[in-house]
């Protein structure tokens, strides 16, 4: 297993946000985490990325203990985050945002090559490379956020709500890119409100409710459960 969480609990102050969660992601897999607002999906992703530290349980990546790694070294292990709401460095240019993506030692030497690869994936970003990231449209910002994460050359890409606030045509474009990234052999943990899209693309999925995992399996098996169909697809 590339990533393995066992009985993981994370909270803010005294209040637990996720409790006793066990998930696993294999190399090259797309795993979706779905669930209602406030279920703890972002907490899970942010904990894996090092923004939040686990309070209990184990979190292992490529055989090593992530809880023992300093927050700024987690990226160096091969984990990159596309955060919810994109969180670009708004006052910095598109190119500078991408450069920050390749800040970690293992990626810095390959920065120029990485930038070329991102521009090949998102040709329109090349035209806007000197523009302040904060002045881009939502879809373009999402592309910079994905590009910034790819610059870190991750083995595991954490995608937190990539379709949030985007027009349907742009959402399709983003998911095309997610497929292309997956085709390069990068494992993806996808948190997504758009359950139909997430289940269409995922190899496996977990359903998170009130901080606990209530169902897990391949998309077809989850969709066979009427409770999940009703709750998340309204069918």
């Amino acid at each position: 297993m590339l990533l393995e969480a066992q009985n993981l609990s994370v909270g803010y102050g005294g209040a637990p946000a996720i409790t006793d969660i066990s998930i696993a992601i294999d190399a090259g897999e797309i795993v979706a985490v779905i669930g209602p607002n406030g279920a703890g999906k972002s907490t899970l992703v942010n904990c894996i990325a090092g923004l939040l530290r686990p309070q209990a349980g184990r979190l292992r990546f490529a055989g090593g203990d992530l809880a023992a790694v300093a927050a700024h070294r987690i990226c160096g292990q091969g984990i990159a985050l596309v955060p919810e709401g994109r969180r670009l460095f708004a006052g910095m240019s598109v190119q500078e945002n991408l450069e920050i993506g390749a800040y970690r030692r293992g990626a810095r030497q390959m920065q120029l090559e990485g930038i070329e690869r991102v521009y090949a994936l998102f040709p329109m970003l090349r035209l806007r490379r000197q523009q302040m990231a904060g002045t881009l449209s939502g879809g373009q910002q999402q592309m910079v956020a994905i590009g910034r994460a790819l610059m870190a050359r991750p083995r595991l890409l954490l995608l937190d709500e990539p379709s949030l606030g985007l027009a349907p045509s742009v959402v399709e474009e983003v998911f095309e890119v997610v497929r292309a990234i997956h085709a390069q052999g990068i494992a993806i943990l996808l948190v997504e409100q758009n359950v139909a899209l997430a289940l269409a693309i995922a190899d496996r999925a977990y359903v998170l409710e009130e901080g606990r995992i209530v169902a897990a399996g391949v998309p077809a098996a989850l969709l066979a459960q009427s409770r999940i169909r009703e709750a998340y697809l309204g069918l």
Partner: protein
Amino acid sequence: MPHLTLLEQALISGILAGGLYGLLALGLSLSWGLLRLVNLGHFAMALLAAYLTWYLGTAFAIAPWWAGVAIVVAFFVYGVALHWVFMRFRVTEMGSMLITFGIAVIVESTIQTIWTADFRRYETALAGASFVVGALYVPMLNLAAFVVAALLAVLTWAWLRFATIGKALRACAEDAPIATAFGINHRALSFLLSGICAAYAGIAGVFIALIATLAPSEIWTWIGVVFAVVIIGRLGNPIGALAGGILIGVCEAMTMAVADPAWAPLVSFSLLIALLLFRPRWI
């Protein structure tokens, strides 16, 4: 109406004085803009550096540049230590203002205890030196201060703009958790920046010793002017700090020449209030 030469002379001394304001504003602007810490102790440390330069020079005959080197190193260490305290106690922007106000008071009292409240003047060989352009005098030391201020502002700007560490610092200022997620060691960088800001206070102090008459209460006269400079120049913008310093320096000098020296302090704040009210695009 004053004579044209008087106005030209006022312009030159205004620009040169503005360089010193910019130099003082630089460290304050960087720590406020990039670390979100308002360091009122900055002025006190600059004055301490000025007294140290004067004292080392008059009591031990140590040349100001050697004193400067020692001060820069010592102040860098102080800046790192100060930031350690801020980090250790999770000091907020507002809290930093109160704590550094306390530091300023302590430093002022310390200066007063050691060197008394008497005015001090550092007499160096270059103190009166100036060269003449037409009918105008350009004092050497003031020009040197201006050149150093401009050089530091440009270098710092280029460092933030083009260097990997400079970009990382800007990223941290915008979103520290995300910067950390991309491998930036926010703590280490903020220690470095805090040290640099304190070192800048030291450099400013050396020139204050060479140019100005020293008195412990000088700390408080600078706070108003340099605050205005920092805000006019935009937080965290080194070139802006220099430009703001020159703007205020020139306005003050012109006021002194045209009206009365007593009006000069009014100028910086009137200018600040006017700029904040009308907010031109570059602010």
